[in-house]
């Protein structure tokens, strides 16, 4: 799983794909997760980080994270290797 380096992300959570002209928005937690992916953190590390920071169970977070990662791959923001 690699971050698509062409994608531009602003601090407000606005995401722009310059290749297609498409833009998306994410909330602060989504932005935080994307930043962690960009830093090269593994899924387990991200899971641990979020669990420590927010009130959420591991089961729920794991499901949400999976869905979020799938969406990012579908939108070409992440490249599935």
């Amino acid at each position, binding site marked *: 799983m690699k971050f698509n380096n*062409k994608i*531009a992300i602003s601090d407000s959570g606005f995401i*722009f794909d*310059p*290749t*297609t*002209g*498409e833009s998306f928005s994410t909330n602060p937690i989504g932005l935080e997760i994307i930043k962690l992916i960009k830093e090269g953190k593994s899924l387990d590390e991200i899971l641990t980080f979020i669990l420590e920071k927010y009130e959420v169970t591991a089961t729920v977070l794991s499901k949400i994270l999976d869905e979020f990662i799938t969406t990012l791959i579908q939108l070409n923001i992440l490249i599935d290797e």
Partner: protein
Amino acid sequence: MSREQITVATTGLNNIDNPGPGIPVIRGLRESKSFKVRIVGLAYENLEPGIYMHKLVDKSYQIPYPSAGSEAMLKRLNYINSIERIDVLIPNFDAELYTFIRSSTRLQRMGIKTFLPTLNQLEERSKPFLYEFGKKYDILVPYSRSIFSEKDIYTLTKDFEYPVLVKGKFYDAYVAHSPEQALIYFRRISSKWGLPIIIQQFVQGTEVNVVALGDGKGNTIGAVPMRKLYITDKGKAWSGITIDDEKLLKLTREIIGKTEWRGGMELEIIKSKNKYYLLEINPRLPAWVYLAVGAGQNLPEALIKLALGMDVKPMEKYDIGKLFIRYSYEMITNLEEFEKLTQFGEL
């Protein structure tokens, strides 16, 4: 730096919901760093908004429709030129290009320069011949066929699967999902634009467009790709954004290089599963050309330089993620202005 004073005549002042490229071209010329431009507007209809945009258009003249023939057009231009001393003429409608290209030598003798595609370039990229164009230049083009009568619609399933695109020779295109729909669109388009009607295989994907300028020697002077963000019910871009697509630019340079394209052009392309299908080449600058100006490539100015025989260096950079958003706007004008144009053919 002092700017050279020139007079440019242009058509396409119909800045309406299906806009002609005249006003965006003029806006580019007004921002020229090399020229101080006097604009002479050439209008077919007396309610083309550009006629009344006096900050953009210095003087407007009505001209005869291309259907009146090139002699009528040249006679009128001769009169206008006797007053205005036109340096460069930029036609902006597909339907008038034949007249202006055929007349370019006579215009040159009048002192009016143009920078247009050759008749051969115009013909071979025309919708009825685009599929053959693709084969000749090794460019992916969806299969298409010209039809001349309603009964031909019922023979389409031999070569096509629905949906198909039903297109007019110059303008209009509709997606038909059945022979019944194709028949409706055949009648609608042919009653307006005549025959043939072009049937083109529909390719599912994302439409992307490129505005470009070729120097006639195979060089791309400028090219800016754009994706439409909002499309009107007439299929026209109401907003769009510049994109970073090197493959698309490579395809553009390939087309200009192989055809030695001369003048402005717009490529309409469908990107489908990482393949690029050429849907149309419009042989002139499009109505969204001002986006290219805003993104850093003043293509109308470069076109003028080419027409004047000046050396123009290719522009390779442009701002990515630059948007255009159209808007509608009411001008208030006096009846006297409308009267003057209607009665005397000039304003």
